[in-house]
């Protein structure tokens, strides 16, 4: 495979462009897609770049088939991915559920837009719950929530590697801001950073010679008996739990017994981190926590961060989707009140977080 990035390169580009470069650098071989704003430019850039590096692209007739075609690509042994947003993400939950059931390591890039339905083409964090738990199963997925272009690049590489390593559908969850804004990013060849790219193998279509003594596997999506399904699922859940311990990620900074713990994910965590620094330098006793993996959620880490805090503020561009994950994690572990700064479909600024935080801090004075 041609080397995509010869030397480390500092570039200034949109997040959608970063996704295309990251997928190339991660060794992705095929993208399947169907247009929807704000992820269209992922497809545009990929189709421009892919031929130069002998990679492929197929636009299907809708999101359902784009999702299923991605699974087909993976089953044929190709590192395949898909990108979508909003209603497209809703439609893709069926192929994503199949990927959970059949343990197909497909990778999705989600650029959240306003919801429900068509809503806005701009931005939100309203696909948090959908991306984590949207299927008709248990949410056996890996979901990274990125906050900057550099993270989009870094976690895209990680997403492909962990998908093929653990064989669960894997997501890089971005949003319209990250998709459309321009900022600096360092593009690099993973090998030069000592990151080994995970290999691929065919799930279907191997000749008896290629099988080389291995047993033929039957990838099942349908079960006749309750117990059969139960046993299969419990094995998947055990595998997922094992993966969870190895891949779970978060960021935590600040006092261990804060008057206020600020919690956010994705691009909102940038506003919240800036607010945290502002409050800290103003002499407040505060802390900052950000889940980087939303599935698995960093439950134990959040419990430690929140164990001795006096109150929490959860900020998100949705109406309680992160908040419910936080509450679930902390049930029975803290008596601290949990407030929500909830702005469905609307961006959150540093100034707004500071204002809310100061009001809450005045309360515990």
């Amino acid at each position: 495979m041609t080397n995509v990035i010869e030397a480390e390169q500092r570039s200034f580009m949109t997040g959608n462009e970063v996704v295309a470069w990251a997928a190339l650098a991660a060794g992705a071989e095929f993208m399947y897609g169907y247009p929807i704003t704000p992820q269209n430019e992922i497809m545009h850039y990929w189709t421009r770049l892919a031929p130069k590096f002998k990679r492929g692209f197929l636009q299907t007739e809708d999101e359902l088939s784009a999702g299923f075609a991605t699974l087909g690509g993976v089953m044929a042994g190709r590192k395949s991915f898909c990108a979508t947003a909003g209603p497209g993400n809703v439609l893709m939950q069926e192929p994503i559920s199949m990927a959970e059931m059949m343990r197909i390591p497909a990778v999705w890039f989600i650029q959240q837009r306003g919801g429900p339905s068509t809503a806005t083409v701009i931005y939100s964090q309203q696909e948090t719950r959908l991306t984590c738990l949207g299927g008709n199963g248990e949410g056996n997925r890996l979901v990274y929530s990125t906050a900057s272009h550099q993270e989009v690049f870094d976690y895209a590489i990680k997403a492909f590697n962990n998908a093929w390593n653990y064989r669960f559908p894997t997501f890089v969850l971005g949003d319209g801001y990250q998709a459309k804004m321009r900022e600096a990013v360092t593009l690099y060849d993973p090998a030069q950073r000592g990151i080994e790219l995970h290999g691929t193998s065919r799930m279907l279509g191997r000749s008896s010679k290629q099988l080389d003594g291995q047993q033929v596997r039957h990838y099942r999506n349908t079960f006749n008996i309750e117990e059969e399904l139960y046993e299969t699922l419990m094995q998947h859940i055990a595998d997922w739990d094992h993966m969870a311990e190895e891949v779970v990620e978060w960021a935590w900074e600040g006092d261990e017994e804060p008057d206020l713990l600020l919690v956010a994910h994705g691009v909102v965590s940038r506003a919240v981190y800036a607010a945290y620094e502002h409050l800290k330098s103003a002499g407040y006793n505060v802390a900052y926590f950000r889940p980087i993996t939303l599935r698995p959620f960093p439950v134990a880490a959040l419990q430690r961060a929140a164990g001795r805090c006096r109150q929490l503020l959860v900020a998100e561009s949705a109406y309680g989707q992160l908040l419910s994950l936080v509450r679930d994690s902390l049930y029975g572990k803290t008596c601290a009140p949990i407030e929500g700064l909830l702005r469905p479909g609307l961006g959150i600024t540093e100034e707004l977080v500071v204002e809310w935080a100061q009001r809450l801090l005045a309360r515990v004075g």
Partner: protein
Amino acid sequence: MNKKHWRIVVAGEGGQGVQLIGEILAESAFRAGKEAIYIPNFGVEQRGGVSIAMVQIAEQALGAPKFEKADILVPLSERAVERTLAYIKRDTFYIYEASAIAPPQLLDATVGIQAWETVAPEAFSLAVGSKPQAPSRPPADMGLMPDRTIGIPAAEIARAELKPRVFNIIILGAILAASGVLSLAMVQEGMLAKLGDKLRRDPELKQLNLRALDRGWAYVTEAVRRETNR
């Protein structure tokens, strides 16, 4: 020049080249080794065809792409003035278009059009009005510092001396001279990089853009000098 974190809002009618101003500012800052974010078209102020570019430039890593108050505010039409009032603080550099030439306006009554959606050209032409407009001066009661409020008749200069299409580059030069956010040399480099292919194919256009940038810069520098000498 020593200010650490610049928050910039440029707003105007679709077709005035607002987004390009934002893109060139951000690209230039990046090339000068600074941190920069550019984000297009957000907020209620964009309703009905007003185009907004938000840029941040700093020496340190940047936080959220959205912000509440602007250090530099550049509204280029009457509607853009109204819709960006919330970004004003006392020490905002307010750079406005002082010509009486009205840009075509996408009318507010045109519903369902969003900046990123593909719109049929005929939908645009039906929605464009052409009423004359007053300069995009700041409202008197906003408490702005007078020496930070600078008007430039960029549309008139563009029409009389250059070409109407470089209106936005004249504004860009004016922004630099008024605020000192980046040096002229930094932005010359950023502009040439941003418009690279286009300008390489057309050396005349390259000269036109460089002259427009200089002209905007010179006009405001001279205006500021006259003001201080008075």
